């Protein structure tokens, strides 16, 4: 699954780990439930859903090295608030990755809310993704 | 769509949608084409619905509109879709 940063494909150094697989030595991304239950040490990534609460988000920001925010649908904007809270309210500075149902049309919103990368489906036309970041020369609001 | 649900209990149905490019109301004809004229619509029995509602990239929101036993649109909404606004299609204020 291609990973984009600033509209360009980059190598993904993280490995998705399901709940039944032991955590590898390297960089694994685990579910929020496992993260909260196991409290693993070392650099770990966490996959979080749209309904993640501020309390859970605070835990994630304090101890995770990267966060994957899963969009359950293209019309569900909760992920934007999660990213923004991670950056502004909890001071998280690691990678925030957008995944799930995402469109290039919202790429600039993701970027401005604090997302650094986007995981797009295999075979995605990257043109609109690149274009999106340069489309608007100026914006009206603060960005995270 | 609820229109299709109602249509299953109707005397007859016609397959309808809006054309993607201009939004015009269109009716599926006996040859499988789309026509802007209601009179061209193929009148079909509700029990063959499942096989006739396949998606078509030329149109949006395909559904079966309920017809009366005289093969006219059964509701006000479908009458207005078929024949235009009751205040006249070119009704200026």
């Amino acid at each position: 699954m291609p990973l984009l940063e600033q509209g360009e494909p980059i190598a993904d150094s993280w490995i998705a780990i399901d709940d039944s697989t032991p955590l590898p030595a390297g960089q694994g991304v685990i579910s929020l439930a496992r993260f909260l239950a196991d409290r693993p040490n070392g650099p770990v990534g966490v996959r979080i859903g749209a309904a993640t609460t501020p309390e859970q988000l605070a835990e994630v920001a304090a101890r995770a090295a990267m966060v994957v925010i899963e969009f359950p649908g293209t019309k569900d904007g909760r992920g934007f608030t999660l990213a923004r809270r991670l950056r502004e309210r909890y001071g998280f500075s690691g990678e925030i990755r957008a995944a799930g149902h995402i469109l290039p049309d919202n790429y600039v919103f993701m970027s401005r809310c604090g997302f650094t990368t986007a995981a797009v489906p295999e075979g995605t036309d990257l043109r609109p993704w690149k274009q999106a970041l340069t489309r608007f020369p100026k914006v009206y609001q603060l960005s995270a | 769509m609820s229109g299709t649900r109602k249509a299953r209990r109707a005397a007859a149905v016609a397959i309808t949608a809006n054309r993607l490019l201009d939004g015009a109301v269109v009716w599926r004809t006996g040859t499988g084409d789309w026509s802007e004229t209601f009179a061209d619509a193929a009148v079909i029995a509700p029990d063959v619905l499942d096989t006739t509602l396949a998606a078509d990239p030329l149109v949006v929101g395909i559904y079966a509109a309920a017809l009366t036993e005289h093969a006219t649109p059964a509701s006000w909404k479908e009458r207005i879709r078929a024949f235009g606004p009751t205040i006249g299609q070119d009704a200026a204020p």
Partner: protein
Amino acid sequence: MNQALRLTDLPAHLRAGIYRYDSTDRDFLAARVEEFRDQVARRISGELTEDQFKPIRLMNGLYLQLHAYMLRIAIPYGVLSAVQLRQLAVLARRFDRGYGHFTTRQNLQLNWIKLEDAADALAALAEADLHAIQTSGNCIRNVTTDEYAGVARDEIVDPRVYAEILRQWSTLHPEFTYLPRKFKIAITGSTEDRAAVQVHDIGLTIRRDEAGEIGFRVHVGGGLGRAPVIGSVISEFVPEADLIAYLEAILRVYNAQGGRENIHKARIKFLVRDLGIDGFRALVDEEFAAMQRERYRLDPAHVAAIAARFAPPALETLADTAITDPDPAFAIWQAQNTRPNRTPGYVSVTLSLKPVGGIRGGMTADQMDAVAELADTYSLSELRVTHIQNLVLPHVRAIDLPVLWRALTALGLATPNIGLLSDIIACPGLDYCSLANARSIPVAQALSARFADLARQHDIGPLTLNISGCINACAHHHVGHIGILGVDRNGEEYYQVTLGGSATDDAALGAIVGPSFPADGIVDAVETIVQTYLTLRQDGESFLAAYRRLGLAPFRETLYAAA
């Protein structure tokens, strides 16, 4: 004539109190139009499915209605220049059928747009610094305000300044463009609420504290639609500097926790109801306290810069004098359709888009051109769109009224019915709208014909009559003194009647009078209601006052006596 002028091309004296786009606004709009052009191309090629495309087109004001696409054009806070009105006429001719409809959200709708033309239509709008951004979709919609902003005698602070600040803040907001549901903000700066702030998702009332500092009373969780609610006060005074931070805190809580499962329970009013206003306030306060407030601070210099763009126009020094005309019809029109401004010798003139038998809020391209001409001549090229679906010329010299009245009469825009029974608000209803259950326009036309006698309307006095074709309540039927709601019964049109609603300071939701009426009985039902009021009213008592004294009972008796 068909070539749109830039507002900045106009001489200074013709640029009255209108926010003029700068290069930031123009570059942004041009980019937005091209983005949409690409998106339409991706839809037509099949790269985008209808499900993916729908929220994108809605965010650009494009609906798919019964017979065609409909373009809802934003008239930000209802302020319009003559140049812009001419451009709307150009659009109506080039891309539609030569007319448009003004709405209760101070927008203009064109009903016969083609998807293939949509990007060109938006580009033509942009030529006149207009757009359709966020006139639909689950985002922050066009901010609405008082049609007399900047000229009203009872104004404390000009709400256009903050409405423009909010327009900029809410436009393509990166975090709040995919909310659980649509979000409507209204703002008023006068002692009388003419913006219906208590029935919006957020309603702002500008106030000054004891030190004279500007702040806002904030109502939250009001709204009409399926479950009408009068908003609750979440804060009595948010200082100007914290306005953006506070609104972000409300929106953030709503975006995170608002309902997304059931579209009918997704507006912020349901979240406020479920948590209670105190519970909701606690979450907002917590979010607000955790924000980097300094970053969100509304800079006084920015406010001053925006305010400068709404500087009062150069008006003449005149005195308030009585204006008379030999034609007795003039005095009736003057009393009903004009109101004095705070500047002596100037008045605001309301153009009635509610002629007998006409389509409420409808206007032809030819009328638009003619009215633009009148605005140039008599109102410093400025107009307002009201949430009652009329237009206002806000800067008219009172001494010009007789000649202006004759010009408006010739155009069919001088029906002296503002605030009277035939000043009906009506949505497009089932004739155009894919959501509607029943027709609104023909009912309004029939009612305006039945009550065409103006002497009788004046005798009946102030009365608001609002007709919505479905429960989404675009015509605000819940807050009409008489409200009419179209419902569908097995494919036939019926109309439910509510009484006692009000949209102003004494905001109230109407009560359902009883079983609904068939299409051929609704006009008679209104007649019976009016007759009952006329019979029972006491000296000088308005319809609303009489209803509040009498309650539903006498109306029920007369309406259903025969049944």
